[in-house]
């Protein structure tokens, strides 16, 4: 189950952060997201010399903490999407799929002429679409 999604701009400024649990540890989730930014920076600045560095959008599992797994996705405008999930057996393909749909929703939100790039995303449609994508992620990986 996804507990938190976040969109972070290219100067590491938060653009959108939303948690999906009722528990009060929202602050802890924000902290996890913040720490994962460091991991992303490290991965971006020291690419592994594996040769397959052409499509670097999906960064994969950033680091596992005691209960959570954190996945990252980098767009080519250096905007980062971060997902924190409590599932223990998450398929790579599911997460990639999630990020693809999330990216489409993000692009539509940013195409709003009233959205100021660099400021927080305040679109209600975006929030609803993200909730839908998050809910469907839980269902698809339940089988």
């Amino acid at each position: 189950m996804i507990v938190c999604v976040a969109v972070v701009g290219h100067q590491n400024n938060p653009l959108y952060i939303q948690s999906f649990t009722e528990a009060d540890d929202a602050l802890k989730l924000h902290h996890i997201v913040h720490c994962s930014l460091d991991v992303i920076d490290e991965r971006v600045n020291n690419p592994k010399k594996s040769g397959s560095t052409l499509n670097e959008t999906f960064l994969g599992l950033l680091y596992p903490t005691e209960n959570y797994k954190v996945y990252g996705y980098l767009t080519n405008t250096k905007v980062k999407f971060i997902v924190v999930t409590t599932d223990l057996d998450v398929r790579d393909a599911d997460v990639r799929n999630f990020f693809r749909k999330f990216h489409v929703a993000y692009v539509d939100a940013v195409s709003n002429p009233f959205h100021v790039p660099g400021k927080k995303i305040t679109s209600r449609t975006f929030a609803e679409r993200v909730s839908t994508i998050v809910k469907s992620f839980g269902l698809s990986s339940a089988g």
Partner: protein
Amino acid sequence: MAPVGPRSGDAIFASVERVNAELFTLTYGAIVRQLLTDLEEVEEVNKQLDQMGYNIGIRLVDEFLAKSNVSRCIDFKETADVIAKVGFKMFLGVTASVSNWDADGTCCSIILEDNPLVDFVELPDTCQGLYYCNVLSGVIRGALEMVSMKTEVTWVRDMLRGDDAFELQVKLLKQVPEEYPYKDDE
């Protein structure tokens, strides 16, 4: 050679040059944003959009009549139908419908279910009085004025404000007969 009959909106739309829809939407969005930054007052922006639409409409009607070959409309009802079915289809690629005729046949509503100008747009709370698509009302007013009809076009429903469709009310004020600029006996 037999006279060419009027062409349907779909046929003309298929034959004219087209532009990418997203480019069009983003360009229009940039225009509205810039007007808001320059003028700051929502009412002023509405007026400017209407004026811009008027300037487009007075030129657009010639292109429309040239490409579509419609014959002279008998009454206002036919005019409204032609605008909705042929005009909107040809220029925006969407078909509108006409309804809500009043008893005299001088006032009707043009309803658009789908509007390419407003893709991706959400009005922020500071711009709640803005008629984002006001350019369309100016276009209709300008075009009809060039064919001797003075009209008043207002928005009844607006999807950006939460309604389920876009509805424009077109009211024919008067038909201005063509006047010769010179007196006959001079």
